[in-house]
């Protein structure tokens, strides 16, 4: 089947119900998207499908065919994604960093719809993403900083 990942067309041979996560990671070697729970409970595997934040660990790959898939490897080519990646580094958000790809993908989806999020907006959008190291206060700060940055450069 043909997939469109980060603006590139890719052909894969996979069972229709194989979760997109494993297509990315194991069949294509795109390992930036992480496995955390397999039940859409932790958000580590978050990617964008047509701009929506989706947990790729439970999304059958067939349902992503024909849609625009964006992963952490490609999100930096969007202004919002780049701003978030920049803010994440300036604030030194990560500790172990394993969940941060998913965090940035969820934050990207948030800022694309809500460019100036309130604390409550951020909590609503980000509470599906677990960080076991506990970087939440910095994630919040980085989202606000990126929102300001995107707002100023518009």
């Amino acid at each position, binding site marked *: 089947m043909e997939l469109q990942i980060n603006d590139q067309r890719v052909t894969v041979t*996979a*069972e229709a119900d*194989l979760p997109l*996560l*494993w*297509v990315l*990671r*194991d*069949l294509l*070697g*795109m*390992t*930036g*998207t*992480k*496995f*955390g*729970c*397999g*039940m859409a*409970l*932790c958000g*580590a595997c978050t990617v964008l499908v047509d701009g929506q934040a989706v947990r790729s660990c439970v999304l059958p790959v067939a349902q992503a065919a024909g849609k625009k898939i964006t*992963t*952490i*490897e490609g999100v*930096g080519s969007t202004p919002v994604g780049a701003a*978030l*990646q920049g803010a*994440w*580094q*300036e604030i*030194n958000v*990560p*500790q*172990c*960093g*394993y*969940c*941060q*790809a998913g965090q*940035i993908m969820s934050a990207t989806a948030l800022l694309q719809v809500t460019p100036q999020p309130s*604390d409550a907006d*951020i*909590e*609503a959008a*980000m*509470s599906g*993403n*677990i*960080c*076991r*190291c*506990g*970087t*939440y*206060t*910095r*994630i*919040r700060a980085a989202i606000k900083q990126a929102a300001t940055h995107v707002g100023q450069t518009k």
Partner: protein
Amino acid sequence: MSAVPDTFFVPKGVTRREFLQRLQAMGGLLLVADGLQIAKAADAPKYGAEGMPHGTVDNPLVFLTIGDDGWVTIVVHRSEMGQGVRTGMPLIVADELEADWAKVRVEQAPADEDKYGNQDTDGSRSTRHFLDPMRRCGAAARMMLEQAAALSWNVPVGEVRALNHEVQHQKTARKLSYATLAKRAAKLPVPTPSALRLKTSGEFRYVGKGGVPIIDGHDIVTGKAQYGSDPWFKDMCFAVIARSPVLGGSVREFDGEAAAAAPGVQKILRMPAPVAKATFHPLAGIAVIANSTGAAIAARKLLKIQWDDGANGSYDSDAYRAALQESARNPGKVVRESGNVDTAFKAAARTIEAEYYIPHIAHATMEPPCAAARIIAGKCEVWAPTQAPQVTREDVAKHLGFPLENVTIHVTLLGGGFGRKSKPDFAIEAAILSQAMDGRPVKVTWTREDDLHHDFLHTVSAEYLRAGVGADGKVSAWLHRSVAPSLATIFAPSTNHEVGAELGMGFINMPYDIPNLRLENPEASAHCRIGWFRSVSNIPHAFAVQSFVAELAANANKDHRDYLLELIGPARKIDPKSLHDDWNHGESPQRYPVDTGRLRQVVETVTQEAKWGKTFARGRGQGLAVHYSFLSYTAAVVEVDIDDQGRILVPRVDVAFDCGPQVNPERIRSQLEGAVIMGLSLAMFGEITFKNGRSQQDNFHQYRVTRMSEAPREIRVHLIPQSDWSMPLGGVGEPGVPPVAPALCNAVFAATGKRIRRLPIRDQAKRA
């Protein structure tokens, strides 16, 4: 003091040598009185890094290279799991080297303790143990560069000076870059330690300053960072394993036909039989190898396995809790005693007692255990997110039957560690499966269910406390019993008391100014794999002691802070040996006394910063706790806001922290912020329960951890400045955790009048 802790023991069925080796392999966590007493008999005890297997190495030729392009490559031999060691360690070398941080890159060392010194990354000791060796590395290289420049210019070396990636000769205004000097410098003899000129702290360029971005930041946010789950080869195959749900269980029979016929499946394999000692041995089970992890997970569901549960098949955590609590109500092995407790209790105006319970907790690293391995021409390479590289290498070699030199462990980034990844069962699994697949690269992934079912769990503990107080509310007698299965049981299953390192985590070394005191440790046996979880036995000990002190203060109708400070008593430096703590985190009792002045200071600082004593509206309040662990001093004030349904919000947490001099204050802050979240997680939700020997929690819906909506919006970290660099360093990664749970529960009491004595809190804050 009458009783001597009986830590000098070797459990049955284990040779002393093996016992010590395994304990040492744990990274000295359990070096305990046991090891020290043996050492004493033979020669002077070794402390700190020198007491660890393979000690330290400070040879600059091992740890750094300077390329023709001027780039400095610094080798990091400790594992990065979020604590910032891949930034902090090179920062020390670069500073002494007078290197420009913008021209520094970092390379991760493979497992090789002969070459690099000890690599066990746990016990909050990487910076504590390697600050000095890394300084010597950088300083030696700097002096070699200066020597090379002096030779080039034919001037006395005293006239040249290294400054920011070049060597200058001020008299003649000449300069030579590190790039130009590197080759010549590398051929010069390495200065002896006594010849080294270390920087004064005033000369530090990076150390103690903060403001340096973490070295892997860019790779992490762009998805390029390589974790244990990320090695990938075109011919790689992917495995998951159905493991015995009960510790010590085995496969009686299995039918793998349906699984073998599932899409993408390449092989179904029986894992090696279980062994009596859990150690880090892979659990018995059936492996499914497929062309993707997803295919392997789907096929595993089709396995039909009949398990033999073995002796732990009846383990029930409810029944076990009741048994532990009963043990805690009765006398046990006395591990410390002073004054005359029984007489003092009789003379006391009042007696107050309380029981506390802290359940098993799972590490739940965001990256579940995982590893990849391949074997080419009799040589095995493993990519593993391991906290214990050398132990991993030794265990892989042993399981494959390979000589050590034919095993290479590539240490990847760890997607969280917290102690779980000190136990390399997952890496051994990958190597075994690659061997079974004729050397093909195999990646083993633990699902979250696997992780929660087969963790090396934080111990479970019942704590009983009784205090005799005078009419003035002052404590005259103190009895504390701690009962918990020991983590030494994974090496010596018959262990039935807490070992020295566990006792030394906030139990035996409690430094309060109490005249009559007895500490007891009744027996407990283990029925699941017990491991070390970030801050280890400090969690139950701090929870019990800090909750109880708050109860005593309330009972005496006194302010908790004032009462706590009075109990700590005046500033004094206490010899840990006088507390019967022969472990002292493996450090010298002279260099590292328990300093009640520093304990007082963190209490005073945190209460001042958090505006302790301010008035709150109904349902709101503050709680305080302090704890000494890993040679550092931490106090926390947690503020809660509890609604009528008992839902607890934590608007703000203040932490005061004294770890001595601070190498990278920015990462220290981040560690404490994270410790607050982890402490809140375990206090609010953390519990693994067992029925029929099986862990009952499958995934994050049943084993909850704190999410952003439940996390404090504000965490304020107050670092106690220490500018004297001759002062020994304390640990950083772990000591932030222990005071959080009791401070939270003390806040719940302040807000609601409800006393939480059993973790997790869940809905216990609901008003009756």
